[in-house]
């Protein structure tokens, strides 16, 4: 149906050229669903954009053909490709938040794609859109027809995108990371929906993702991409049970497993370099011993009936009249040296809880004890002392570093504020040490954030947190924005640092397997409340709460990959 031969695409940057896709060949049969898996920068998205002639202007197609219906798509004029886009081949993009036009009603945006390619009248088009909305299982389709994108949830927006892609019953749907920005439970629903619709309509599907678990869930065949090339291709079963290429092996191994706890997570480099690929798992006994030691100590941090709330509705004078309790009556304890996992879906209040502990968001009521001190009773000046002991690593390494400050200033600034070390030279020496400790080189000190990749930036952010020699570190989705192989490296680093400095962590994430791997105990949060709290492995093997069960079932690829 679609065949790509010898495709090579490069990106121009000034004089230099960078190859994004190299000699790629691929075929897609009618009704086939093909997963393309690779990490950011592997060229998977570029390939799919080339099919639709949607490449950014800097991209140059050096050679190759993309044949569809006997025509080379790369050679079509704008008006010719326009007749194929949205009618024969359609696309679903990654970010449903930004992929829809914010100022046009959802229904109108879907109606538009029908109007361009058919001659139906307005009434017929509207009925068809509502029918599509029903098909993609949107609630209250008539109402949503007249809603703007910002009034919908992320999952609903993605359903609108899918409705849009399906509208003209295309031959091929290309889905580029369609569920990456969504919660696991929503992701599961969307994947099931896509699978069902693909069967119903008899379409071919190209599913692009960085997550092996997700492709296992939805596609028949997998192509693994690495540095612009397809390194391995085969059925889902083959790839998972018998990966041939070291990169594929690494990719499968570096996901935190759902049972057992390797002392160190494997990383892709281990496989590529052909080094040691056998990793020791912590035994039950050593775990028991460790836990016994942790839980026989005095409590380090304790919250009592903590409530943090946001105004929902304000009256005419701007005085809030309705509140949302983002953190609702939460009480828990953390022991020194422990890693406490906090999981939940977006909007459950887990980040707000993390920030409340440091009083980055002011809690409304309740108490937070750090050792003996009630943090909520402290004045700004006294609190500063504790800001040094308790620190936080944020989610997005791209926006949590000031682009105009060099790395050195970013790392030394907190030391300066808290008066650690007497002069700049000492601080600089210490900063360089820390940068080396997190796996970077000392010369990073003089460079700027934009020169680094996501994983490197997260290391810098960790170094910055370490600069204050904290005792207690809150990691708020610290690895969520990273590729799996990079994620494994950062997780390893966090565990090494914990051992070395004796930290206590609160590890916040929406990714259950990551949280389980990192934590001793887990709290499951839903709508501001803790619904389940207990030993990490225990919760995973025998969840009691319905919601926890649902979360666990939604982990993508759990059947195919892990059982």
């Amino acid at each position, binding site marked *: 149906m679609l065949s790509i031969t010898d495709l090579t695409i490069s990106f121009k940057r000034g004089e230099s050229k960078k190859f994004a896709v190299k000699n790629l060949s691929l075929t897609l049969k009618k009704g086939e669903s093909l997963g393309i898996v690779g990490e950011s920068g592997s060229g998977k998205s570029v390939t799919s954009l080339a099919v639709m002639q949607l490449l950014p202007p800097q991209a140059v197609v050096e050679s190759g053909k993309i044949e569809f219906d006997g025509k080379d798509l790369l050679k079509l004029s704008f008006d010719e490709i326009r007749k194929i886009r949205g009618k024969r081949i359609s696309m679903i993009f990654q970010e449903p938040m930004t992929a829809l036009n914010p100022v046009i009603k959802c229904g109108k945006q879907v109606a538009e794609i029908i109007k361009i390619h058919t001659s139906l009248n307005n009434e017929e088009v509207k009925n068809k859109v509502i029918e599509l909305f029903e098909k993609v299982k949107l609630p209250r389709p008539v109402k949503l027809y007249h809603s703007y994108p*910002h009034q919908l949830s992320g999952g609903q927006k993605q359903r609108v*995108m899918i409705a849009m892609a399906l509208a003209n019953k295309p031959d091929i749907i290309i889905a580029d990371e369609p569920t990456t920005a969504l919660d696991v439970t929503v992701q599961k629903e969307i994947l099931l929906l896509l699978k069902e619709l693909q069967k119903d309509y008899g379409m071919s599907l190209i599913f692009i993702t960085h997550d092996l678990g997700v492709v296992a869930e939805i596609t028949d065949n997998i192509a693994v991409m690495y540095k612009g090339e397809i390194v391995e291709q085969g059925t889902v079963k083959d790839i998972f049970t018998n990966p041939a290429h070291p990169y594929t092996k690494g990719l499968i191994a570096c996901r935190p497993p759902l049972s057992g706890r390797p002392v160190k997570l494997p990383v892709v480099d281990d496989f590529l370099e052909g080094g040691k690929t056998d990793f020791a798992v912590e035994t039950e006994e050593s775990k028991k011993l460790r836990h016994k030691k942790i839980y026989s100590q005095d409590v380090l941090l304790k919250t009592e009936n903590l409530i943090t709330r946001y105004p929902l509705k304000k009256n*005419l004078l701007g005085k809030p009249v309705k509140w949302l309790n983002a953190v609702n009556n939460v009480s828990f304890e953390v022991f020194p040296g422990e890693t406490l996992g906090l999981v939940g879906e977006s909007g459950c209040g887990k980040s707000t809880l993390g920030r409340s502990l440091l009083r980055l968001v002011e809690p409304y009521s309740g108490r937070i004890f750090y050792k003996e001190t009630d943090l909520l009773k402290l004045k700004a000046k006294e609190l500063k002392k504790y800001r040094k002991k308790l620190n936080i690593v944020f989610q997005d390494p791209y926006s949590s570093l000031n682009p105009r400050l060099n790395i050195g200033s970013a790392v030394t600034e907190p030391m300066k504020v808290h008066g650690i070390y007497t002069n700049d030279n000492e601080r600089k020496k210490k900063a360089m040490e820390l940068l080396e400790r997190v796996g970077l080189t000392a010369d990073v000190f003089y460079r700027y954030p934009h020169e680094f990749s996501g994983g490197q930036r997260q290391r810098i952010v960790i170094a910055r947190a370490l600069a204050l020699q904290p005792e207690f570190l809150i990691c708020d989705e610290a690895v969520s924005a990273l590729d799996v192989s990079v994620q494994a490296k950062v997780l390893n680093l966090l565990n090494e640092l914990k051992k070395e400095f004796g930290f206590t962590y609160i590890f916040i994430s929406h990714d259950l397997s990551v949280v389980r791997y990192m934590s001793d105990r887990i709290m499951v949060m839903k709508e501001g409340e803790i619904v389940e709290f207990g030993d990490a492995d225990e919760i995973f093997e025998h969840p009691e709460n319905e919601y926890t069960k649902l979360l666990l079932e939604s982990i993508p690829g759990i059947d195919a990959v892990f059982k």
Partner: protein
Amino acid sequence: MWAYFTRKILYGFLVLWGVITIVFFLFNILPGDPSRMLLGQRSDIASVEAIKKDLGLDKPVYLQYLNFLNDISPISLHNIKNKESYWYFDKSKYRNGKIILRFGKTGLVLKKPYLRRSYQSKREVSDIIAEAFPKTLLLASTSILLAMLLGVVLGIISALKKDKPVDRFLMVFSSLGMSVPSFFSAILMAWLFAFVLGKYTGLPMFGSLYSVDDYTGEVYINLKNLILPAVTLGIRPLAIVISLTRSSLLDVLSQDFIRTAYAKGLSKKAIIFKHALRNALNPVITAISGWFASLMAGAVFVEYVFDWKGIGVVIVDALEKYDLPVIMGSVLFISVVLIIVNILVDLTYAILDPRVSYR
């Protein structure tokens, strides 16, 4: 949505009160004796005292301030019995005033805000403003409309032809337009189009919207006189609109939802007009409304050069002659206009971008 606007309007009143207070105290502490200004240097003590009493200058400042507030407010309290009272309801001052409630000697009055009288011409300030402001409004609206329509079109062209000669030319024009001071461009325009090319264009060097025939009292309206000042005044906003539309449109065109629109198979025209432009216009509206507001305050230089008797010229004249009531009245009036313009702009935002009122 409605709560949002009610809040904006309440906020507007708060701002207005702040302006009134600042204006009052600012001009109260300035040196100079209004009674002398009214009567000239050679007046006798008795008449100076009489004027002082009439203006309430013998009263303490806080009473003067309250009296000022009372005069400006459309609903006010007055003494309706005692002619000697500072608070007396004087029909010659408060024209069209109606007493709606009486309690003893006090009356609640509904009236046109009283901005007092000019020291110079003795005319009521509100009359002076009513005469000058429509001209300024016409001039400002024309030039802004011109800048907006032409600017958005040229901005789109510039964005679509990015780095092509047309774009380069428009960018040069735009930076020139932004940097040329209006008194210079005004003189240049007048010289070039009315003096040098006057024979072909038929445009006069200067002149106001209408003139009154001294003998017959007939009023002549000369719309032709509007052209040169409006174009001159429009140059700068035009330059800004072009470059803003361009950069904002280029920004929007690189957004994800534009890629979605292409993936649907839409034509370039539909993408630009249906998907991109509405998203791109917000910063343009912000800039334009700012300019519109400042033009309302009177484009002093341009009004002066073309002898367009708008509010800018009124203010400059009043400042020169230290005509306090005219200055205070004009400043207050312009504040009200600015506040109204701002509320209207917020309304436009909410219409253009449905996300606004939720923020």
